């Protein structure tokens, strides 16, 4: 058989084109956009940076997109950091935590140790401010007459972060402002699509009052009204989400 170099290079380019297509297909099928978001009216408000990131603007000018943090996260077997795409062209090439439902940050604090530019800085686990986790009270089992506490068991900070409001509706968990935003509670929530959402700190400052009034309103709600809310609205929604997830996994 006679293969000239020209043929070889041609076939190489064709091969690389098709292989990139197939890669994109597998990736697209694996990470389908999850429709079942908790707190659908609150958006994340930007991107969630790896732990130890300096302030957003300074981070952007320090990060050279070398990929050390991404690969170290892979070496540590957590795989939570990804490189952000061209949707937001200013953030292109910078690291962020992509999929907290499956790959949350485990706070191993290896990436800030090895970041060569100083965009991620070595700090204590407790002082990390990646984001702020919010519980969707309409979906959480603990707020709807069940005992779950999966989120508080998964939390690496434990009692520092979780407040419990014990009452007629069970042990109702609430995440206070000491939250580091690692997203382990998002992963370990048993509800379909998770009942916890992590948003950035800046976004939290804007939705804080709204969220707190919702929280206080639920605590002070009369029993009759709360009963109606749980049984006519919340529980059917929780069950429906469970069924959708079940169908997807099947």
């Amino acid at each position, binding site marked *: 058989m006679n293969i000239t170099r020209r043929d070889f290079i041609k076939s190489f380019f064709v091969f690389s084109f098709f292989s990139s297509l197939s890669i994109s297909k597998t990736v697209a099928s694996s990470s389908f956009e999850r429709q079942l978001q908790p707190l659908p009216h609150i958006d994340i408000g930007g991107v969630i940076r790896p732990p130890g990131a300096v302030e957003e603007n300074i981070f952007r000018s320090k990060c050279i997109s070398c990929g050390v943090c991404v690969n*170290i996260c892979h070496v540590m077997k957590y795989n939570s950091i990804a490189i952000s795409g061209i949707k937001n062209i200013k953030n292109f090439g910078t690291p962020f935590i992509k999929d907290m439902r499956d790959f949350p940050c485990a706070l191993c604090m290896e990436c800030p140790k090895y970041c060569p530019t100083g965009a991620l800085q070595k700090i204590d686990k407790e002082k990390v401010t990646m984001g702020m986790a919010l519980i969707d009270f309409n979906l959480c089992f603990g707020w709807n007459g069940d005992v779950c506490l999966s989120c508080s068991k998964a939390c690496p900070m434990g009692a520092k972060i979780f407040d419990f409001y014990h009452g007629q509706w069970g042990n109702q968990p609430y995440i206070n402002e000491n939250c580091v935003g690692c997203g382990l509670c998002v992963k370990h929530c048993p509800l379909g699509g998770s009942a916890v959402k992590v948003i950035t700190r800046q976004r939290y400052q804007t939705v804080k009052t709204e969220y707190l009034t919702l929280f206080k309103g639920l605590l002070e709600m009369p029993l009759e009204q709360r009963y109606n809310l749980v049984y006519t609205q919340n529980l059917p929604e929780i069950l429906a989400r469970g069924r959708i997830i079940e169908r997807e996994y099947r």
Partner: protein
Amino acid sequence: MKINTLRRVFLSLIILLFLLQFLRIKILVGSLSGSVLIWSLNLIDVFAFLESLVATKDFSEKAILSVFPLILLYTIFGRSFCGWVCPMDYIFEQINKINKKQKNILKPSKQIGYILVFCFLIVSFFLEVPFFTNYLSHLTNFFRILSVSILGVLKFPVDISVLYFSLTALFLLIGVEFFFPRLWCKSLCPLGKIYGVFNKVSIIKLKIAESKCSRCGICDKSCYMSVKISDSNKPVIRDTNCIYCGRCVDKCTEKIIKIRFGV
């Protein structure tokens, strides 16, 4: 052993070390613009450091500590990064073999590279983003393609648009290389220009026994970076464009060109 084969072995060794990080073997983690060696030594590319410095307008101790080992390395080895470590050198060589007839029509002066370096630094200063390293750099894009495609196939979370962007950038560069051979390396690449400055102070040099030279001119023809070796009438060559690839050393009929270290 020919220097060319030695060079290829060295390049494949470096790429292999970088690929081992996807098997969770932690010898060399990161990419060629910034990496960690054996979990102890942080390394950062010199031009990336400059851009990051200009963008932040602030000294970062960690970045200086990371760039220092490389400055030390380049004061010894000069611009040999381009010839020995940069994967583009191999890719461009294969591209050039396809169209041997293509002659480079454009012959820009050496200064245009320095102007480009200055332009990228200005852009980084005003956008507050390390512009070249983040979007255009062939090293970053090459390693982004590797990382995103491998992690994507293993079904870990990746953003697939990064792969498209990096592939487009790299193919554009290959297109430029196809029509204007070695234009990028010779006169445009800002990374190469920065390493070229190190060539002036580096310990490595080309040594020529001028008296034995038969003036065949084969060294000038074989040189990829069009360094004028036979014209110079100097026993020692420290040109900013020399990448110490050793093509002239291999091709020389009298075997009088040698790569040597010395002040």
